[in-house]
């Protein structure tokens, strides 16, 4: 292994990296503009719920919302929502303290259980909401997830 050569290669790869980054930035973005998905760009809980059409949502104990009390790492937080509410159409997962609160919105066609498990990012200790839309209105359940720090280097 030639040390100098490796350094040169590293420098070269850096330059290519920058060039690619510039190109990527200039490239027109495909797909999703913010207006199409207002719930995903809202910056407060109130706005998010409003954009979801869930402003008058009521707390419900018929939503089994499993989230860890303490997350060892906020980068990956497992969550599980099982709605016992009849006529459940969709389940949305919101992380109140995240820069973008809205994580996901699942729609359940006829024949699919109103159940979903996934993993979300939680930037800091925060309330998580599972918002369930049913034929009889909108309901939600809340869980507090504490995010802890770790490691020897911060």
């Amino acid at each position, binding site marked *: 292994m030639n*040390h100098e050569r490796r350094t040169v290669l590293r420098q070269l790869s850096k330059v290519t990296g920058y060039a690619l980054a510039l190109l990527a930035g200039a490239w027109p973005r495909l797909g999703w503009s913010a207006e199409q998905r207002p719930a995903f760009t809202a910056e407060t809980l109130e706005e998010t719920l409003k954009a979801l059409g869930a402003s008058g949502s009521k707390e419900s104990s018929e939503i089994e919302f499993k989230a860890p009390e303490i997350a060892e790492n906020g980068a990956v937080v497992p969550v599980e929502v099982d709605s016992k509410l009849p006529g459940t159409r969709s389940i949305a997962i919101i992380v109140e303290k995240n820069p973008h609160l809205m994580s996901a919105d699942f729609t359940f066609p006829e024949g699919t259980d109103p159940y979903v498990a996934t993993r979300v990012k939680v930037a800091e200790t925060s309330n998580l909401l599972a918002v369930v839309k049913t034929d009889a209105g909108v309901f939600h359940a809340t869980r507090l997830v504490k995010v*802890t*720090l*770790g*490691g*020897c*280097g*911060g």
Partner: protein
Amino acid sequence: MRNMNLRKLPFLALVLGVLLHFEVVADGMRDTVVAAMEASFEAKKQATMDRLDQDETQTLCTQHAAGILPSAVAERIMTLNRATIRPPPDGQYLGDWKGGELIAQTGTGFQSSDDPTKPAGGNCYACHELSGSEIAFGTIGPSLRYYGKVRGTSPTTLAAAWAKLYNSNAHMPCSNMPRFGHRGILTDQQLKDLMALLFDPASPVNQ
């Protein structure tokens, strides 16, 4: 009397540890290890190769890490390190506990991945329990909960705590705790802020 017994505890633990798990690094091994370290690392940003060089304390602690620390060596290490301790030039031991809490929470500093222009942290929570609200604390070091409340703030108590932060090896040879002041990890002002975190009645450590 009680204090003296407590002070002997680490030594008793050490003796016991050695009896249970006796290991000695062969004498000729040192040169092999040093040569292999030199050949196996490369400088990266602020983590330059001279960081592999050991001062006398580190050399002695490495040499005796697997066995008993002979009392003469322990004395030598304590003497060496006691001589480095400088009290705050203005005589003021206590700074701002809020600054101290931030330093205690911050784990970055001196790693190749860290910004060398930013102040380093003390990373106290990695090893110690301090304020009651932080649940993610380590247990390598003893709990420091209610530190000032229990001990008070007499001049000798303050000076002893300052010495411990400044150079842990002055009274506890080969301590796991970094020598924060002596090695230039934290500034005098940062050490004062940590002192306040430990002693200020308003600090969450004493709440």
